[in-house]
């Protein structure tokens, strides 16, 4: 494996993106799992498809359109929920479907041959460019910096945002910061595992990490490590057996989760 890594640029890029996206997933994933924003994140990921389509139509980088749509979806859901009596759950469903529909329309309107959308729907880690690796590195760095430097606010916000508001903390700022970070993180993840599968990267490593720890910071670190191992493992399977990378990464992570749970049960029983 190391030989292949040194020899091929695309393998090296894939390796770096696997590591970097695991960092993003470990932190953002823990936040969305603990704040119960999993379905919201699914909605954000799917809404971004509209932006990707728009990107193709306008001839700009599709992921830029994706980020625009994802951020608007997150902030839109949050602000509509605050102003009307519509449930967040319903809004998420609406954004989800409308985003996908817009994407399909924009792509149909794009002149020339229709672009191949499978990369965006299911991801392809083996075609990641070195420019994208740099963007991913910057995103991962920002995510780590923000979560470490604001950790106690983050923890307080996730546990009981109402209380932080009473203490006079600007929770609206916290909410926006959080939603923007989640949206940006998810869109860059699309390149690696795709829209449909991104939610798995944000939940499976965290669920596995939670078997080992009940401390917020540790869950973030453990899920980053578990995510790194499973995504590199999955990428390797994808290369060896020529199967799509997104799906193989997810199958490896769910396998690790499925094996970890009974093993940890046996270990904890022995201790008692």
């Amino acid at each position, binding site marked *: 494996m190391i030989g292949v890594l040194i020899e091929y640029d695309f393998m090296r890029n894939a390796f770096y993106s696997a590591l970097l996206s695991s960092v993003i997933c470990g932190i953002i994933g823990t936040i969305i799992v*603990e704040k*119960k924003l999993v379905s919201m994140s699914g909605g954000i990921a799917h809404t971004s498809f509209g932006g990707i389509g728009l990107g193709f139509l306008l001839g700009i980088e599709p992921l830029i359109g994706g980020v625009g749509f994802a951020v608007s979806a997150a902030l839109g859901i949050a602000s509509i929920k605050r102003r*009307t*009596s519509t449930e967040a759950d319903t809004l998420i469903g609406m954004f989800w479907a409308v985003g996908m529909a817009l994407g399909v329309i924009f792509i149909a309107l794009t002149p020339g041959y229709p672009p191949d959308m499978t990369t965006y729907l299911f991801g392809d880690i083996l075609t990641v460019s070195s420019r994208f690796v740099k963007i991913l590195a910057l995103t991962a760095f920002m995510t780590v910096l923000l979560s*470490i*430097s*604001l950790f*106690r*606010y983050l*923890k*307080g916000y*996730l*546990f*009981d945002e*109402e*209380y*932080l*508001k*009473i*203490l*006079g*903390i*600007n929770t609206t*700022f*916290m909410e926006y910061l959080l939603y923007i970070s989640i949206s940006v993180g998810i869109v860059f993840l699309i390149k690696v595992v795709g829209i449909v599968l991104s939610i798995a990267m944000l939940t499976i490593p965290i669920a596995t990490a*939670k078997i080992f*720890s*009940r*401390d*917020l910071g540790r*869950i973030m670190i453990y899920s980053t490590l578990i995510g790194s191992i499973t995504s590199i493992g999955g990428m390797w399977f994808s290369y060896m057996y020529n199967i799509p990378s997104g799906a193989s990464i997810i199958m490896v992570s769910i396998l690790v989760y499925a094996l970890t749970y009974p093993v940890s049960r046996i270990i904890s029983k022995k201790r008692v």
Partner: protein
Amino acid sequence: MNIIDINNISVEYFGTKALEGVCLSIVDKEFLSIIGPNGGGKTTLIKTILGLVKPSSGIVEIKKGLRIGYVPQHTKFDRNFPISVHDVIITGRIKPKIRMFSRYSEEDKRLTDDIIERLGLETLKNRQIGELSGGQLQKVLIARALVTEPDLLILDEPTANLDAENKNEIYKILHKFNEDKAVILVTHDIEYLNNNKRHVVLLNKKIIYSGDSRRNNHEHYHGERT
């Protein structure tokens, strides 16, 4: 001296009236109990005092510099959230201004340890909240409010779903606090109110009844009586 004056407050949620023309004053060092049916606006009233809910009309005047400690209901929490007892309590000391890499001061830590000791939570200090009983979690939430050094403590049904022993422990903490500071207690515990004569307000969108059973000077609103 009044520490809070609520003047003719109405609150609406998407067209439904939650509170209608509520007037109420809270005197320093008093112990006010608010009772009323579910959906009668008890929680809305305290959220309005806390500034979490904006009244559609009327104003809440709060004495300048008054520090309010709030204790939410323990049942509304996600018990699986990964946070320790100590970390919940010290959150009360978090500074309002968001700064990167801010740390808790020595004083914050000392105050937290003091409260933990005073409420007898030392053995639970490093436990995760998921490992606590309802009564223990309620005490932790009271500790988080006390660590802010409040002049007024507002509690939303702190004894809901608790057994007699835990209830008494909570009341003991409140009575101690009430020796020199004010308390607003939202409660369904009629038995407790019967045994402890004090200022009680019955709220069902409006104030239906307000009376101080210690002084026996009942005031009736809107001619209704319960």
